[in-house]
Structure formats: C-alpha cells, structure tokens
C-alpha cells in the first residue's frame, strides 16, 4: 500500500532523512517511533505529498507522490503534528469545508459527518468557535478532518498529544477498530501506545531507520541475554548449586532483602537459549515452594533507548 525506496531528504545542508526504505501492507498498523527531530514527521510529510523527497521514490497505492500527487491525496487522511485549524470557524463549518474540499457528495457527507462526530466525541462542541476549544477538542477536530472522507490510508502524526488518559484510550480503540479496513501509520513519543496499537514498529533515529519489526522482535534485537527472577523457600547454598547446575545459566545474582528462609535471585541466560523448562523442572524435583517466578523483560522504553543509543555510538551505521 505504501512503499518508500531509498528516500533521502535534505533541508538545505542538513540531511533530514538518509536512505529510508520500508513498505506497509494494506490493513497494517505501523507505529513510528524515534526521538524528536529523528525524521518521523518528515517521512510523513513525504507520504502525504506535502514535501518532496530529495531522492528515492515513494508510492501510495499505485501512485507516485511526485507524479500523481492528487491521486495520493485522495487516498490519504492526514493529521499533521501541528493541528491545521482555522480559528475563526465553528467546528461544524470546518468539517463542512473539509467535506466539500474532499468532494464528498451531500448524502455521503451526512453519513460520514455523523459517524465522525460520534467516534471522535465532537457532538458537544459542534457550534463552538475552534479558537475557544481545549487542546483535546482541537486535536479531535483535526482527527475528524482526517477521517471524514473515509480514506484508505491514515497518516497520524502524534494523534494523542494533548489528550487526557481517557481520551487516549478512546482514540486507541478507534484506531484499533479502523485497523481491519485501513492502512495506518502513526507516530508517537508515548511508547506503550505503540506497543498496544501497532502490529509493527519502525524506529527512526537521526534520519535513519534503525529497526523494523514487531514489539518482541525489537526487544530481541537489543538484548543479548534474558533474565528471570526466581525466589523459593530453600537454603542459599542448595539454591546456588542447583541453579548453576542448569546448562545455559550465565550468572546468578542474589537479592539480599528476602525474608528468612527464602532465597531469591536474578538468573541470566543468553537470549537464544530458553532455560525456563529446565529451571521449572529443577524446582519441581526438589519440591521447593515457589514464592516468586517472574520473567523479566526490557520495557519498550529501555529497548528504545538502547536502539537509539547504540545507533549513535556506531556513528549512525545501522
């Protein structure tokens, strides 16, 4: 549906994007993450035809963004990072204007208008001036604008910025509902949001694509070893020798603040080897009471930090 090939973008002497290539299939939700200034918005602006790539090609549907921009724009609903609102208009007037500009016929417009209002929760503010709306309502008005023509492709640049937690959940659910019929690219700083909504995550840093894959893939990519926290009722020495006896265990790190008679520690093992069945079997053989058994995994934040940092250390060679 969306295909970028070797896209580069220069702003004067600064290179904003370097050799970005990826493709998004129909119906996929792709999360775009990266630090500020990494090139998320620039990539989105290229897909929506607002800016042109300096080199490389970008196609949406079967249309090239440079050769047939109008066909691309027809397919896309776009929520820019800075909300594009006419402050003197009423919310209703604004949506009507977008409907006309998107060439919606009266019947279709009415249907879509009602759907959009219901799903973005704009009903209470329809007759208010946009300039007096709260940040959340402004954001939602803009989201309504991106959805009103029922586009095949949705490009959402930080769709939940300025919303309160409840509204964020609402928008997340809306995005998930749309998932089956639409191709969606969304960017965000809020990492948990991406992991709950997106099928696939693209990490950009310093204008380069540094990772592409599912949430689990990303974590695999940045961790050389996994760990599990085990705490059982047993003697410390027995515990230590039993754990060390399992093949694959690299390190055992005791935790000292366990209550009397309970021993606990982090067990580290290489990410390519799964020792959990062996560990489980060992504890069962010895009839130890398990107090805690917890698989520890990097949070998306940590893996994100590692991805972007390791990339910087390698001199941007990813």
């Amino acid at each position, binding site marked *: 549906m969306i295909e970028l090939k070797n896209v580069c973008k220069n702003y004067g002497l600064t290179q904003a994007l370097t050799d970005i290539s990826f493709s998004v299939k129909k119906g996929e939700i792709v999360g775009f993450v990266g630090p500020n200034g990494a090139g998320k918005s620039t990539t989105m*602006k290229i897909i*929506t*035809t*607002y*800016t*042109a790539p*300096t080199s490389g090609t970008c196609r949406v549907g079967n249309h090239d963004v440079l050769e047939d921009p*109008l*066909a691309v*724009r*027809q397919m*896309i609903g*776009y929520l*820019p990072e*800075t*909300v*594009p*609102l*006419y*402050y*003197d208009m009423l919310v209703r007037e604004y949506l009507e*204007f*977008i409907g*006309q*500009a*998107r*060439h919606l016929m009266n019947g279709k417009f009415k249907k879509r208008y009602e759907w959009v209002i219901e799903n973005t929760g704009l009903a209470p503010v329809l007759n208010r001036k946009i300039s007096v709306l709260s940040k959340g309502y402004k954001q939602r008005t803009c989201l309504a*604008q991106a959805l009103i023509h029922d586009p095949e492709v949705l490009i959402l640049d930080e769709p939940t910025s300025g919303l309160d937690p409840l509204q964020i959940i609402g928008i997340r659910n809306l995005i998930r509902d749309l998932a089956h019929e639409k191709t969606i690219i969304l960017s965000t700083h809020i990492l948990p949001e991406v992991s709950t909504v997106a099928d696939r995550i693209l990490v950009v840093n310093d204008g380069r694509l540094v990772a592409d894959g599912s949430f689990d893939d990303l974590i695999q990519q940045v961790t050389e070893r996994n760990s599990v926290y085990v705490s059982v009722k047993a003697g410390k020495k027995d515990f230590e020798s039993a754990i060390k006896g399992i093949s694959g265990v690299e390190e055992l790190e005791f935790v000292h603040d366990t209550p009397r008679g309970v021993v606990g520690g982090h067990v580290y093992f290489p990410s390519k080897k799964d020792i959990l069945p062996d560990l489980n079997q060992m504890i069962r053989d010895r009839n130890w009471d398990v107090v805690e058994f917890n698989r520890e995994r990097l949070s998306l934040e940590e893996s994100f930090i590692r991805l972007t940092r390791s990339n910087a250390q390698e001199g941007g060679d990813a």
Partner: protein
Amino acid sequence: MNQDISIIFKRELKQYFYSPIAYVFSIIFIVLNASLYMFHFFFFGNADMRAFFSTLPLVLGLVFIPAISMRLWSEDYKLNTIELLLTLPMKTEAIVLGKYLAGLVFYLAGLAGTLTIPILLAILGKPDIGPIIGGYIGAVMLGGFFLAIGIFISGFFSDQIVSLIITSLACGFLVLVGWQYVPMVIDGWIPGLGSFFYNYVGVTRHFNDIERGVIDMKSIVYFLSFTVLFLYLNAKALERRKY
C-alpha cells in the same frame, strides 16, 4: 477545478468578513480616499474625480492592497493550515485562484464604498461620466494587479506584517517610478534607468491612460498579463517549496 476554486473562494471570503482587521482597513481606505478628495472638492469646486484617481494608486499600493493580501498565505503558514490545503486533492493553481478571487471581491467591496463620491457629484452637479467609469475600470485593474503581487509575496512569509511591508514597498515602487519626476531623479543618477522604469515598469502611466478614458489595449494587456504572471509564479513557488 472550477468547483475547487469556488470552495476555497467561499471559505476565504468568509474569513475576510470574520476578521476585524479587514474592516478596519476598509474603513481607513474609504475615509482616507474620501477625505483626500474632499479637500480638492471644496477647494476647487469641480464636479470631477480627477483628484480622487490621482491619489488612489498610492493609497491602494501602500495601504489597502497589502492589508488585504498579507493574510492570504501568511496566515496559513502561521496556523499550519498550509499543510491541510496543500494535501487536499486540489491543484495548487485552484487554491491560489480561489484565494485571489476572495481578496479581489473584498477589495471591490471596499472600492464600492467610495461610490458615494460619484453619487454625490451626480446630485450636486453634472459630472462627466466617462472619466469616472474609466477611473473605476482602471482602479479594478490596478487593484487586481497589486493583489496578485501581494498574494505572491505572502506566499514567502509566515509573518503577516512582513508580507504587508514588502508588498507595500513593491507596490509603492511601481507607483512612484511611474510619476514623472521620480524617474527624472533616477535618470540623474544612472542615465536611462529612470526612463526605463517609467516606460516599462511604472504602473501610474497605464492607470492614468485608462482613467482619462483612453482604454488602450497596451495598458489592459499590461495589467492582465502581469496579474496572471504573478498568480502563476505564486502557484509555482508553493510547489517549489516542497523541494
């Protein structure tokens, strides 16, 4: 294309009537013109509008047209609605034309406000209608031309005041080099340059021709071709901005 122009036109025109600044400038325009004229009217007691049309280019070029055109693109940069407009399934030319026509209609509404003067003259005396009609035709063409310059300049700046000042300088220049004595001074510095400006660039001569009732094809072609040129350049500049 036509439908797109009219959608943009309607929205932009509404925006003018929402904006208090536009009203303020219209009132200034009408009051300034009428009062400049009234001085001549009472002093010389002639039932013609020559004095009105002689100051009109300067008032239009320095104040009124830049005030109308400044927001046409600068406001969109500031509100980021430029990103909305240029990702709508519309040709850039259609958006430029829609905006331009909205500015033009607003200008014409302001200009219509000065029609009180010919009405007054018709009641008080027997004015020669020809030059008055000619003068208004000239005013429409001149305003249309300045507005095209204004929208072109507005396409480069996100600050309305900067757009206003630069448009005012550009239009002011075009008016002044068309006055007989300004080119003479320039000729004194660089021989030939002043006459060149006067003959080819200055706007006043063409305006005066039309205003005198001499509707010369040359002057009409001058106004229309430059208007179209600047609108075209405006659309091209906005497309270039992508790169």
